[in-house]
């Protein structure tokens, strides 16, 4: 059995560490449950922020300072804000998705499956049958606080190629996002109706339907546009 896997009782560790871990664990679990059970997506996003902060504290506890900072900046600062932007943009914050479950057996089954997965992972973890491989392949963790220097060295030497590929991946993702959400270009002949459609419901995904003058002049098309768009 790997020595680190012996479950030392929480009270046998140093008191500040134990308290920090316990409080962070409660925050993480409470936030995660809040994400799942909140009816309003905005509340889910705020609960997600809570969980992310708890995980960041746990990162600091394990001498991963840089990752904790990145966690707060990227996750809580950028990703959740992106979620909130999309929620507000689409106006789905009043929707109730929990009621009227079309599959009544799905929820208990999901609960059972989740508990089975959790139980099997925990059983696997505490059974002691571990193959942990060689320790410290790329570089040792610095003993004192502060992992930034060691992490930077590893990222820019051993993991240089994945780092560069990551840059390409980000560019591709940005281009894909812009292409996906781009409103198709409106023709100038639309006039008032065209401007209206472009503003309120530039929500049309079909470029033919927007640029088609027959559909364009019809304000009634706004209500029906999401079913089948018949171009004429």
């Amino acid at each position, binding site marked *: 059995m790997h020595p680190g896997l012996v479950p030392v009782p929480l009270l046998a560790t140093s008191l500040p560490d134990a308290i920090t871990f316990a409080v962070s664990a409660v925050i993480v679990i409470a936030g995660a449950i809040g994400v799942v059970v909140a009816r309003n997506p905005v509340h889910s996003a705020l609960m997600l922020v809570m969980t992310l902060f708890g995980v960041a504290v746990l990162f600091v506890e394990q001498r991963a300072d840089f990752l904790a900072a990145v966690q707060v900046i990227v996750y809580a600062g950028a990703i959740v804000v992106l979620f909130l932007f999309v929620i507000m943009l689409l106006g789905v914050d009043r929707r109730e998705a929990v009621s009227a479950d079309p599959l009544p057996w799905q929820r208990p089954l999901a609960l059972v499956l989740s508990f089975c997965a959790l139980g099997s992972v*925990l059983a696997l973890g505490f059974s002691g049958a571990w193959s942990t491989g060689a320790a410290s392949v790329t570089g040792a963790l610095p003993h004192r606080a502060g992992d930034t220097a060691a992490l930077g060295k590893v990222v820019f030497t051993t993991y240089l190629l994945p780092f560069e590929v990551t840059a390409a991946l980000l560019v591709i993702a940005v281009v894909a996002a812009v292409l996906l959400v781009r409103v198709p270009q409106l023709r100038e002949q639309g006039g008032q109706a065209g401007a209206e459609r472009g503003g309120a419901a530039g929500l049309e995904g079909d470029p033919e339907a927007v640029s088609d003058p027959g559909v364009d002049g019809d304000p009634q098309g706004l209500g029906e546009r999401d079913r089948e768009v018949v171009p004429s």
Partner: protein
Amino acid sequence: MTDVSGAWYLSLAAALFGIGAFGLLVRRNVLVMFMCVELMLNAANLTFVTFARMLNDIAGQAVVFFVLVVAAAEVVVGLAIIVAIFRRRREATADDLHILRG
């Protein structure tokens, strides 16, 4: 005067992953399903950092760094897809997305 044992962190990460998986299976709102995926990614990140500390290996933290970047890209593309779907049809639930059905 010891640190909190890694088993506690791993158990917490397993619980976090279980909650995220449960939410992903249960919820119908695609945005909340996305947030549950983020929960599961965070559980995996916590596991990586814990093993990096237990094995005294910086590689685990490097992997977490890349997971963060890929998660950001994934969220960008996923939310763009959600916005595009919303433009076609005004629903937020995953059950209504059966465009491909013949």
